[in-house]
């Protein structure tokens, strides 16, 4: 509020603005104003044309892509380049799906296993010390991942995990902990403590109380955290690029794309099919889970 009061020059005083005022003032009950549809038209074209080009050109020959990037030459569409990309022996994106999905699942599971109980203890404790632990985790959200990735290499080297999948997973799980714990703590605090007491009276220990009584009630927070972490890990490029060198033989979708396109950037019959393969699963997932994804990522960004 304060911010806005300090801006007296918000008022539209120019001539054209006034005439626009009049027009929109009369049309306020009418949502189909031409301005609105022009705005939405521009939005649609600008957002969708790149995806249209991606899809169409994945099924065209190099010559057709160069000559007529926007056209759909019905007779000359070919699946050859797509199938070549699917079965490519080098930097295979489909192979990248498998490894990336494996990473996503393992990191998601480990993150929940570590963040859940930790958040439960933090949320239920009244001690100052425990609250300091929460601050300790929160400090992690201030650290840009790209800035610590270099020293992480040397830490992993010390513990014998340099250039290993285990090392990458350890780093990825650690990077998901701060926001996950923060979101979990916030949510657990909304669950009445009486439920815990009832479980304790019935003889359940703390682990059991958490996993069988509290955890099932945390579904919305867990969904948010899973979406946030899954999309983050799936799209992550810096960590696998720096922590898993090509000699490890493992490629995520992003590092496979990086390796293949930096090698064949002028061969558009390799670029477009590979990019389409990389984008397709995410877009399909997005279309199905749209509402969850949008609200999950928003909560994660704003609260995290």
């Amino acid at each position: 509020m304060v911010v806005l009061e300090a801006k007296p020059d918000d008022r539209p005083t120019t001539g054209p603005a006034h005439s626009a005022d009049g027009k929109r003032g009369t049309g306020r009950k009418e949502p189909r104003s031409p301005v609105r549809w022009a705005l939405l038209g521009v939005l649609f074209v600008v957002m969708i044309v790149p995806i249209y080009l991606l899809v169409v050109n994945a099924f065209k020959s190099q010559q057709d892509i160069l000559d007529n990037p926007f056209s759909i030459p019905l007779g000359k569409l070919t699946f050859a380049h797509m199938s070549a990309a699917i079965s490519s022996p080098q930097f295979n994106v489909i192979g990248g799906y498998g490894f990336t999905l494996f990473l996503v699942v393992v990191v998601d599971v480990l993150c929940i296993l570590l963040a859940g109980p930790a958040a439960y203890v933090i949320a239920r404790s009244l001690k100052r010390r425990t609250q300091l632990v929460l601050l300790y985790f929160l400090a992690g959200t201030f650290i840009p991942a790209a800035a610590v990735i270099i020293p992480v290499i040397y830490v992993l080297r010390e513990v014998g995990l340099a250039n290993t999948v285990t090392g990458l997973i350890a780093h990825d799980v650690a990077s998901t902990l701060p926001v996950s714990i923060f979101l979990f703590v916030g949510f657990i605090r909304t669950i009445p403590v009486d439920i815990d007491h009832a479980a304790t009276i019935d003889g359940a220990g703390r682990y059991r109380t958490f996993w069988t009584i509290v955890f099932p009630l945390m579904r919305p927070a867990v969904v948010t955290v899973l979406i946030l972490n899954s999309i983050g890990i799936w799209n992550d490029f810096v960590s696998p690029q720096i922590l898993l060198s090509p000699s490890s033989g493992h490629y995520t979708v992003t590092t496979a794309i990086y390796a293949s396109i930096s090698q064949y950037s002028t061969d558009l019959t390799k670029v477009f099919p590979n990019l389409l393969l990389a984008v397709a699963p995410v877009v399909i997932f997005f279309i199905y889970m749209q509402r969850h994804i949008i609200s999950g990522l928003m909560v994660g960004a704003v609260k995290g």
Partner: protein
Amino acid sequence: MSGPQRLGRRRARLRETAVSLGMIGPAVLLYTLMTVVPVGVALYLSLTDWDGFSTAAFIGLDNYKHLFDDPSSTDAWYVTALVAAFGTALMVGLGLVYALALKAKSRTNSFFRAVAYFPHVISALILGYLWAAILGTNGAINNTLAKFGIAPVGFLFDEKFALISLIAVIVWAGFGFNVVLFVAALQTVPAELLEAAAIDGASRRQTDLRVVIPMIAPVVTVATVLNLVGLIRAYDIVVSLTGGGPAGSTQTFTYLILARSFEGTKVGYATAQAVFLMVVSAVLALLVTALRNRQDQAATGG
């Protein structure tokens, strides 16, 4: 209270502490090892001239001094600041315009919101490659222009245009997030306020500027800082869209750290740059927290 009872209670409390430690310990341990220790290592390495192989020599604050007299480092900050400032202004501005157009709850609106938002779930690396194939010398736009006899435009290969292209692609990929954020805030603006404004004879534009936007001002502030913090870390999209070129004109600070200093085995200097980036991010992120606290206070009527 009798002795054995007290002893039993103490033992119970001790067991409870042990269980708590068992629940919280693994997370603390992993986080410490993979995030906190590396920050310490970075601080140490930043005071050395280590190249990643030989033994490191302690050189004090030389790396940090070098940060300010090394032209590639100051240039990278200049580029990063331009990206962050213009990117944020455009993303927040466009976010507000489209949020106002799409705030009503309807199927059409949620479709268009998804259209604006979808690039946010795709890796920036991939979006950069896609746009490189569209804007490149042999890209879709230049090949189409060529058919009309127009010479190719160096969207990505001309020093004048490359930074503009980079910012444009970043805005394309990121403004949808702001749209969704602002729509969520706009939907909490009470209808009575809008009715009151209408009764007072305010036009739609006046209502938007004087009533609606002030109501969501705290969210706009938070979005601004979120965008700033995100953009000063821009890396993936630089790798795929321009590779920092031409002639370093799109080289952001994170790109400089990872692709130049680190690849060039100047590990000590790279970590000094990383520490500096960390400090700048932390200052901006602290700003978010401070603003958010103020927003919470405002929300609770404080």
